[in-house]
């Protein structure tokens, strides 16, 4: 366990009840844990207790088995990345100098620091020209990338993020969330992310701790579990009515059991074709050539061609219909099927025909628990 909170309580002076009351939570190494909840639920307090910006009243917090109270707060914080909503870049320092903050405090040599700054700039997708600029010369999204780079500078194993994308517009937010996931694939940090945005938690977290007032964890689950199986009414009302639709966005086409559909190779016999049509009860037939989806044709055309003695490969084909990749979400698949005015999307697995997806497949997958979160979750 990378981070372990045991019976953590925080009572602020003068408050009638504890902000966080006897909270225990384990966060696995290399995963993203979202602390999700309404304002005042103690999620930020919990986060700030991990790096001791707030000292707990009771309980223990361990990082990699070491009690956070066993070292000085400053030493502890230099080993934990910290990203906040308002970014908090130093306006009077250049981007390079901002990123170098912790290495400088740790007394790294200049050459090592500047090499690390260059590396991080690339990692978070910033233009190297930005390094000599001041924060005010950057857009909000760029500033937040610098914030992440600065937090990662000394390569801390743990990253704390407090509403990191709350201050940017929705389009930039989505992009930054995707970038965070890409980044996480490369750096594998243990990340604790505070958010009040259900979509954000669903999109980036491996696990979500949904908190209620007093730091009470109402449910601790993977995003898909949270949507599929809300533990109580609070969870239900917090995540909203459209849980089914949200799950569509959480699961990839690859989570479905593919089936072939009425699709045959161009070299197949008409008997094979008829068999596929009959099996699927379909009015169309897909043709593959060398494992690639080449197009589709209507069943009457197939029969007319057979009567004419034309080979299957030469039956007039229509261009490939809706095609989708295995990594796309079920939501995208559904949207494609509806907008293409057909009942099916063809899975294009890096060029090769992978199978077909129908609305019925999607419905069935959502109604059962057979979506395998481990490899299907985005």
């Amino acid at each position: 366990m990378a981070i372990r909170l045991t019976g953590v309580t925080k009572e602020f002076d003068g408050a009638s009840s504890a902000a966080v009351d006897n909270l225990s939570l384990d966060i696995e190494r290399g995963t993203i844990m979202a602390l999700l909840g309404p304002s005042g639920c103690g999620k930020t307090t919990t986060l700030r207790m991990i790096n001791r910006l707030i000292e707990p009243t009771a309980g223990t917090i361990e990082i990699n088995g070491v009690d956070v109270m066993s070292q000085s707060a400053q030493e502890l914080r230099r080993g934990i990345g910290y990203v906040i909503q308002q970014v908090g870049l130093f306006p009077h320092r250049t981007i390079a100098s901002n990123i170098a903050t912790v290495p400088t405090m740790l007394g790294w040599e200049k050459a090592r620091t500047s090499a690390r700054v260059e590396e991080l700039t690339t990692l978070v997708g910033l233009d190297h020209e930005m390094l000599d600029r001041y924060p005010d010369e950057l857009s909000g999204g760029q500033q937040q990338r610098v914030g992440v780079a600065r937090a990662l500078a000394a390569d801390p194993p743990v990253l704390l993020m407090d509403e990191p994308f709350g201050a940017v517009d929705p389009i930039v937010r989505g992009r930054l969330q995707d970038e965070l996931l890409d980044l996480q694939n490369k750096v594998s940090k243990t990340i604790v992310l505070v958010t009040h945005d259900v979509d954000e938690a669903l999109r980036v977290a491996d696990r979500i701790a949904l908190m209620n007032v007093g730091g009470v964890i109402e449910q601790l689950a993977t995003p898909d579990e949270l949507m599929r199986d809300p533990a109580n009414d609070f969870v239900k009302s917090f995540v909203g009515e459209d849980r089914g639709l949200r799950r569509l966005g959480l699961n990839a086409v690859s989570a479905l059991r593919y089936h072939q559909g009425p699709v045959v190779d161009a070299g197949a016999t008409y008997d094979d074709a008829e068999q596929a049509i009959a099996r699927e009860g379909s009015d169309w037939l897909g043709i593959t050539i060398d494992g690639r989806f080449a197009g589709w044709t209507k069943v009457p055309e197939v029969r007319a061609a057979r009567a004419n003695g034309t080979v299957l490969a030469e039956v007039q084909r229509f261009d490939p219909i809706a095609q989708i990749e295995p990594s796309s979400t079920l939501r995208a698949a559904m949207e494609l099927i509806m907008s293409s005015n057909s009942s099916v999307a063809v899975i294009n697995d890096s060029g090769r025909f992978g199978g077909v997806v129908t609305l019925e497949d999607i419905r069935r997958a959502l109604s059962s628990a057979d979506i395998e979160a481990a490899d299907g979750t985005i």
Partner: protein
Amino acid sequence: MTPGSLPSSLVAGATNPIIRWEWVVEEWDQVWQAIVEHVTLTAMAMALGLIVSAVLAAIAIRYRWTMTPITATTSLIYTLPSVALFALLAPVFGNLSRWTAVLPLAGYTLLILVTNIVAGFQAVPPSVRDAADGMGMSRTRRVWTVDLPLAIPFIVTGIRIATVSTVGLVTVAAIIGQGGLGRLIFSGLRRAFWTPMTVGASLSIILALVIDAVILVIGLWLAPWQRRRKAAAT
């Protein structure tokens, strides 16, 4: 016609023009000395004022409740009439001592300087402090490397206002025999010989403008990020 031969004439005219350039050339040493004295008094008053203000501001920032009494006291000093204050201090230090002039002058800078220093520190965005603390920066390091640089534009503004008003007030100190350019002004007025008065008055105005410009430039040099922001805005 010599200046001394015109005791009763109060009329500026052909015989007593606003400025006689021969006088300026002839008495340049005296004029230059007045400029030097004016700048010295201003600099001493500002240096003392800054030191005292820095201490007071540090106390006010550290212990918030002290802000009110500190502001009240410095405001009170600011309201004291300068002539009265110079006159009162003359017997204490003797009117030949520079301190007789410097102390009140420094006193007048406190209100502006303390207010601006405190405002500068208060203007540091909380998120910047939070980030600094969250990255494990010590308090001392944060104050010197984050808070202070960010407060500099405010502090520089305070110094500019205080310096310009000090340059003006120094002339008043002429009543106790200090006063730099003020002495030229007073002697011209006393003798109804306009040239020294004109020279003293215009030079004190020019001095105020020049010093203000110099501090402005130093301020921009100290806060390059602000310069860049202004450039980006235009």
